[in-house]
């Protein structure tokens, strides 16, 4: 009997050790995944806050333009639907495609992002990484998009894709691009989504 008890005890220790090791591996994998997701989010954030993207995600009554993100010329205003106002619609200058001979960018349905999708404060300063992440993942403020929906938006939305084909300035030089290629941006978004769209802590 003592030998049997010893055998049971050894078996129990072996099983417990195996379970603990398995649980530790799972916990480790989850931590790594979240860390990878947050690293991927940093990359996504670097794109979202580049001028080609954030210039139309203002918190104010106007869009911005240029790498210095100055207020749009000609007293352009947001309007009720983010498309300007009757005498001064976005579409009055911005056509379906870029007009490189005149330096005016264009794309389908040119418009400002709605105010609930602002990535700046009212002084035109970019919001923090945590704040933009919270906004982007808040389904009451993002057209009810879940993670796969956000990925699809980044992959397919014409105005998102325009950022990598922004055309030429009036002086003929090429507009600057976001810091990642579109493919890198999509890969980073996918990693972030796969990790459960984690957001950095803090304000």
């Amino acid at each position, binding site marked *: 009997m003592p030998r049997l008890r010893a055998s049971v005890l050894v078996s129990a220790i072996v099983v417990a050790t195996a379970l603990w090791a398995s649980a530790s591996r799972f916990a480790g994998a989850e931590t790594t995944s979240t860390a990878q997701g947050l690293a991927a989010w940093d990359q996504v954030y670097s794109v979202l806050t580049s001028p080609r993207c954030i210039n139309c995600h203002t918190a104010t009554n106007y869009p911005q333009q240029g790498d210095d993100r100055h207020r749009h010329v000609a007293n352009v205003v947001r309007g009720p639907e983010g498309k300007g106002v009757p005498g*001064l619609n976005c579409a*009055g200058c911005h056509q379906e495609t870029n*007009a490189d001979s005149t330096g005016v960018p264009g794309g389908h349905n040119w418009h400002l992002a709605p105010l609930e999708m602002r990535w700046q404060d009212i002084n035109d300063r970019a919001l923090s990484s945590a704040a933009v992440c919270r906004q982007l993942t808040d389904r009451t403020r993002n057209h009810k998009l879940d993670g796969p929906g956000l990925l699809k938006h980044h992959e397919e939305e014409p105005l998102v894709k325009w950022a990598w084909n922004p055309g030429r300035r009036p002086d003929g030089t090429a507009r600057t691009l976001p810091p990642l290629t579109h493919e890198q941006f999509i890969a980073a978004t996918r990693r972030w989504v796969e990790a459960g769209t984690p957001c950095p802590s803090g304000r």
Partner: protein
Amino acid sequence: MATFQITVNGERREVNVDPSTPLLWVLREDLKMTGTKFGCGISACGACTVHVGGVATRSCIVPISHIGDRPIITIEGVGNDAVGRAVQDAWVAQDVVQCGYCQSGQIMSAVALLKSTSRPTEQNIEESMGGNLCRCGTYPRIRAAIKTAAAQINKGGA
């Protein structure tokens, strides 16, 4: 060079120009319709405003190749409908014009506003006309004329 067929003030026109040519140049140089003015050339002043597909458009920065089959209305044709006629009449009644250079663009923007918003508020006028500059400073008379035109339109006279 390429051939483009465009509809201007209801008339089909054909032009043979470089595809990158701005609509303003086509109107003024090829079609000899000089009512639309060149002001700044960078869409900042509004003097070149015409309607393309019903949208007030800065013709100095839109290449002819981007027009497609959208109808174009210029200052020469805007008085052919009731709202345009009401605005032109109001411009005369209020004696808006001083030097006149910017006024065709001002009228085109005012017509776009009133076709969209027949009872514009002060803010509507401010925002919709905010991109049309007038170095003579006729802004108070422009504002008065828009209100006159709106009153005319809303009493059924347009």
